[in-house]
């Protein structure tokens, strides 16, 4: 399962989208159905990510997202990634060591832009400077709200 997770993470980091289970199976020289079951097992072991409901499509593989969000990530001048959420956006830096990671998002109140740039965990740019993180519902399944809120 470690190998499958690693391949999925590497694929989304390298290309902006995670391998489909049929592609995962091919890389691992497995039958396609075994690849699907392996994906299911990985997502169970990594419950902070999720599949799109009623499908075997990866929606979220944090800190990145397969499904676009408002948190657009640019590295080396290329915008081909999305962060799972505003919190995970500050963790994307660890996937690109030695590089500047730029996250741009519209404010959900006014739509005006926000920008953070990080390099190896340190902020390079925070615009506007009063930007904050906000957790709208507490952590934990007892709250009964999806984790992305």
């Amino acid at each position, binding site marked *: 399962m470690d190998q499958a997770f690693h391949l999925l993470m590497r694929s989304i980091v390298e290309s902006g989208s995670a391998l489909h289970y049929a592609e995962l199976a091919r890389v691992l020289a497995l039958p396609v159905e075994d690849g699907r079951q392996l994906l299911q097992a990985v997502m169970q*072991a990594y419950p902070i990510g999720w599949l799109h409901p009623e499908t075997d499509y990866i929606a979220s593989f944090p800190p990145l997202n397969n499904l676009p969000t408002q948190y657009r990530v640019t590295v080396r001048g290329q915008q081909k990634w999305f962060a799972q959420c505003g919190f995970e956006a500050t963790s994307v830096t660890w996937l690109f060591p030695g590089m500047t990671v730029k996250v741009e998002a519209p404010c959900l109140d006014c739509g005006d832009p926000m920008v953070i740039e990080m390099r190896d965990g340190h902020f390079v740019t925070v615009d506007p400077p009063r930007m904050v*993180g906000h957790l709208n519902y507490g952590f934990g399944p007892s709250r009964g709200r999806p984790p992305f809120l």
Partner: protein
Amino acid sequence: MNLFRSEEHARRWALFNPQSEEGFISLPDLAGFFATESRHHMLAPDYLSAWFPRRGGERRAYLEGIGKSTPFWLGTPSPA
């Protein structure tokens, strides 16, 4: 789990939960929260088995260290 231009902007958000006043976190604290040791190993071949299981404990310790030790942040049941 969103970023806003300021606390005032978050409170004006149409979907703002009035019970989330304690849900604000500064960007430096947020970056620290998402920079615990296991996060540095997300590209390691053994991340899922060796590092991901440490994440929960690291998060709890960090949150307690910055004074966010309520059920809202720790994901523990609220007192009855």
